[in-house]
C-alpha cells in the first residue's frame, strides 16, 4: 500500500462522486487486482448483449409499410448489397454502389481529405455515386452541443435529406431510389438511427413531421419515406476492404495502428453496429479495424480504446481545457506510450479533429505527444497510391502525418512540392476534380440537365 496519507481538502477534488468519497489509496498492483474482474466483463461485446431490451425497429418498419403508413427506400439488388452481421447477429444490408454522399460539415470544413479520399477510392473501384449541393448538415452536432433543436426538428431534417437522396437521380433522367444515402459523419449516423427508431415507434411524431414534409413537398405518394438501412461510410469501406486491398501499392506491415471507435457510431443504437468474430474476437466494432487488418497493418489494442475523444460537441468550442486534456491524457498519450502507435485511425469527424488538432498543446506541459491521426479511408487511399496532398489533403492535419509517410516510404517533401506547383495551376483556373462538376446541382438556381451516367 502507498504511504501517501494525504486526504484531499473539502472542495479540492471534483470527480462527481460527492463529498463523502475518499481515495482508497491502493498502489498500482492492488488497484489492478481489485479491478481486474471488471476489465474481464466491461467494454466487451457481451456487456451490450446481456441487456434485456432487444428490439429490431426494422420489424416495425415493414409492418408500417404493409399498413400503408410509410414507404421504405430499399437497398435493392442494383445497389449490389453485401450482408454483414450486427451486435446481436442480425443481418444488415450494405449497398456498395449507386451511393448518395451525405457529407459531414466538420469533414468538409476542416478535414477535406476525408471525403475526397473516400470518393477517390470509389473511383478506383468503379462505384457510381452522386455528390450534390441539395443537402444540409444533420444539425446534431449543434443539438448535442447547445440543446437548440428538438426531436421533431432532427426528424424533419433526417427525412428531408433522405428524401432528396431518393429523388436526386431524376436530375440525370434516372428513376427515384436510384441512389442510396451513405452517411459520412458518425454523429449524423448515430442521430439518424436514433431518430428513425423514434419515428417508427411514435405515430404522434410521424404525424407532426408529416405536415412539415408535406409543406416541403418531401412525401412519396403522400407518405413518409424511411430508409431500410442507415449506412455509415465506414461500413461500406469495411465490406469493400478486400477489393481495396487488391489495389494496395504500399506495404504497411510495419505500421502499428491504434483504432479510435467513435461513440456516436457504436454507443448510440448499438444493436445496428457491425461486429465480426474475425475482428478482435468480435469484441470491438469491426469497422476501421477490419480494413486496417486487411491492409496488413499491426492493429494494437490499448486500454482506453472505449473512451471518447474529448470532443464533447460544445466542449471543443467553449470548454477547450477539457477537450485537449482528455484527448491527450486518455487517448493520444496512451496510444503513444502503451501501444507505441505509428498512427491513430478513426471513423468520425469530431474524433479526427479533436485527436489531430489537440496534440501541439502537449508541449506546454513539457510532455509532448506525437501520433499521426487519419481517418480509415485516408489511410486506405494513401497506401493505394492516392496523392497525399492532392487527394488525402494531409496538409489540413496538424499531427505529424509526415512521420507516418516516411514510415510508409513516401517522399512527402517531393509530394508536397508537387502540390505546391499544382496550387499555381489552381490559381490559374486549371482544377482537377473527381467527378463532372455539372452533376453537383440537381435543382434550383444553376441546375442544367445532363445526360444520364452510362
Amino acid at each position, binding site marked *: 500500500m502507498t504511504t501517501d496519507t494525504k486526504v484531499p481538502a473539502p472542495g479540492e477534488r471534483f*470527480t*462527481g*462522486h460527492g463529498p463523502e468519497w475518499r481515495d482508497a489509496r491502493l498502489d498500482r498492483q492492488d488497484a489492478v487486482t481489485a479491478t481486474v474482474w471488471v476489465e474481464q466483463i*466491461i467494454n466487451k461485446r457481451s*456487456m*451490450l448483449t*446481456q441487456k*434485456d*431490451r432487444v428490439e429490431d425497429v426494422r420489424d416495425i418498419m415493414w409492418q408500417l409499410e404493409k399498413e400503408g403508413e410509410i414507404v421504405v427506400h430499399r437497398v435493392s439488388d442494383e445497389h449490389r448489397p453485401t450482408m454483414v452481421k450486427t451486435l446481436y447477429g442480425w443481418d444488415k444490408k450494405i449497398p456498395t454502389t449507386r451511393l448518395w454522399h451525405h457529407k459531414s*460539415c466538420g469533414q*468538409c*470544413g476542416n478535414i*477535406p*481529405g476525408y471525403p*475526397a479520399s473516400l470518393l477517390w477510392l470509389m473511383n478506383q473501384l468503379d462505384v457510381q455515386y452522386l455528390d450534390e*449541393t*441539395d443537402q*444540409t*448538415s444533420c444539425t446534431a452536432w449543434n*443539438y448535442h452541443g*447547445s*440543446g*437548440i433543436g*428538438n426531436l*421533431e*426538428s432532427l426528424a424533419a431534417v433526417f427525412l*428531408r435529406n433522405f428524401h*432528396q437522396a431518393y429523388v436526386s437521380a431524376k436530375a440525370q433522367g434516372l428513376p427515384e431510389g436510384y441512389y442510396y444515402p451513405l452517411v459520412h459523419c458518425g454523429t449524423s449516423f448515430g442521430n439518424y438511427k436514433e431518430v428513425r427508431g*423514434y419515428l417508427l415507434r411514435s405515430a404522434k*411524431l410521424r404525424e407532426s413531421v408529416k405536415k*412539415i414534409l408535406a*409543406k416541403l413537398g*418531401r412525401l412519396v405518394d403522400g407518405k413518409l419515406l424511411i430508409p431500410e438501412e442507415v449506412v455509415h461510410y465506414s461500413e461500406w469501406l469495411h465490406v469493400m476492404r478486400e477489393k481495396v486491398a487488391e489495389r494496395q501499392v504500399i506495404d504497411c506491415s510495419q505500421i502499428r495502428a491504434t483504432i479510435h471507435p467513435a*461513440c*456516436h457510431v457504436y*454507443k448510440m443504437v448499438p444493436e445496428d453496429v457491425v461486429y465480426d468474430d474475425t475482428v478482435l474476437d468480435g469484441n470491438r466494432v469491426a469497422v476501421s479495424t477490419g480494413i486496417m487488418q486487411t491492409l496488413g497493418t499491426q492493429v494494437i489494442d490499448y486500454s482506453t480504446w*472505449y*473512451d*471518447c475523444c474529448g*470532443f464533447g*460537441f*460544445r466542449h471543443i*468550442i467553449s470548454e*477547450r481545457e*477539457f477537450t485537449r486534456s*482528455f484527448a491527450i491524457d486518455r487517448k493520444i498519450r496512451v496510444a503513444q506510450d502503451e501501444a507505441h502507435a505509428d498512427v491513430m485511425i478513426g471513423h468520425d469527424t469530431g474524433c479526427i479533429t479533436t485527436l489531430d488538432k489537440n*496534440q501541439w*498543446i502537449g508541449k506546454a506541459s513539457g510532455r509532448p505527444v506525437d501520433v499521426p491521426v487519419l481517418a480509415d479511408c485516408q489511410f486506405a487511399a494513401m497506401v493505394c497510391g492516392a496523392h497525399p496532398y492532392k487527394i488525402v489533403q494531409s496538409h*489540413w492535419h*496538424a*499531427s505529424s502525418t509526415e512521420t507516418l509517410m516516411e514510415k510508409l516510404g513516401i517522399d512527402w517533401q517531393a509530394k508536397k512540392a508537387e502540390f505546391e506547383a499544382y*496550387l499555381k495551376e*489552381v490559381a490559374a483556373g486549371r*482544377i482537377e*476534380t473527381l467527378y463532372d462538376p455539372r452533376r*453537383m*446541382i440537381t*435543382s*434550383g*438556381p444553376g441546375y442544367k440537365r445532363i445526360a444520364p451516367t452510362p
Partner: protein
Amino acid sequence: MEHAGTRVQQYIGDPVSDAPPVGRAKLEEIFSDIQSDMRYDHELNGCLNCGICTATCPSAHYYDYSPREIVQLLWTENLEGIYDAMQEKIWACAQCYTCAARCPFGNSPGGLVMLMREVAIKHGMESAKNVLRPFSRVMLKLISTGNQLSPDMISKDGFPDWGPNISKVDAPLATLRKAIPMPTLHTTKTAWEVNLKTSVELYTIWEETGVLESLKTIDKNLHDVISDIMDEKRDELEEWLEEQEED
C-alpha cells in the same frame, strides 16, 4: 448587514436557506416538460445506484458532474435537485453515451441530459444563455446556411492552442479550397456549397418545429439577424422561381 447576492445565489438561490430557489409550481412545470418528452420513458428505466455510468464518464473526471446523480434525481423526482442540476451540471456532459452503453438497466443518462438541456432553453435559464453565447457563430451559420462549420472559422488566431500546423501549406484559403478535388467543397464560408432551395427548406423546418422561438428566448439579437438573412434568401428564391415561370 445585507450583502448583494452572488451570481450563484441569483440563479439557484441561497444554498444555506431552506427557501426553494423558485416556486413549487415552476419546479413542477419544468419537471413536467422533461417527463412529457416521448423519449423520457425510453431513456429512464430504473436505477440501483451502481455508478457504472459515472465510473466511465469522461466529464466526471473533470467536473462536478455525475450521470448517476442525474438519473437518481429524475428517478426519485427530486424537483429542487433537478432544477439545481440544470443550472450548470447538465452542461458538463460530453454526450459520448458511454454511460448508456454500460448501464445494465438500459438507461441513457446522456439522453436524459439532452431533454434537460432542451427544457433549460425553453425556460430561458441563464445557464443556457451562458452556454450558447460562444455558439452564436455556429448557430448563425447552421440556421442560415444548413452547415454548422465553415473553413473560414478555422484559423491560427481562433485556435492558438492548436499550434502553427492548422495548415501546413502556405496559400490563400480560397486557393486551398479549390485544390480539393470535390467541386462542392470549393467554398470558404460554408463547408460545402448549399443549394439556395435547400437552406430555405431547412429554415422552414426551424420555423415549424419551434426551434426559432427557442432561439428567440435565448438570444433575441441572433434570432433577428437570422430572420433578416433568411427573409432575403426567401425573396431571392421567389424571384428565381418567378423568372422560371416567365421563361
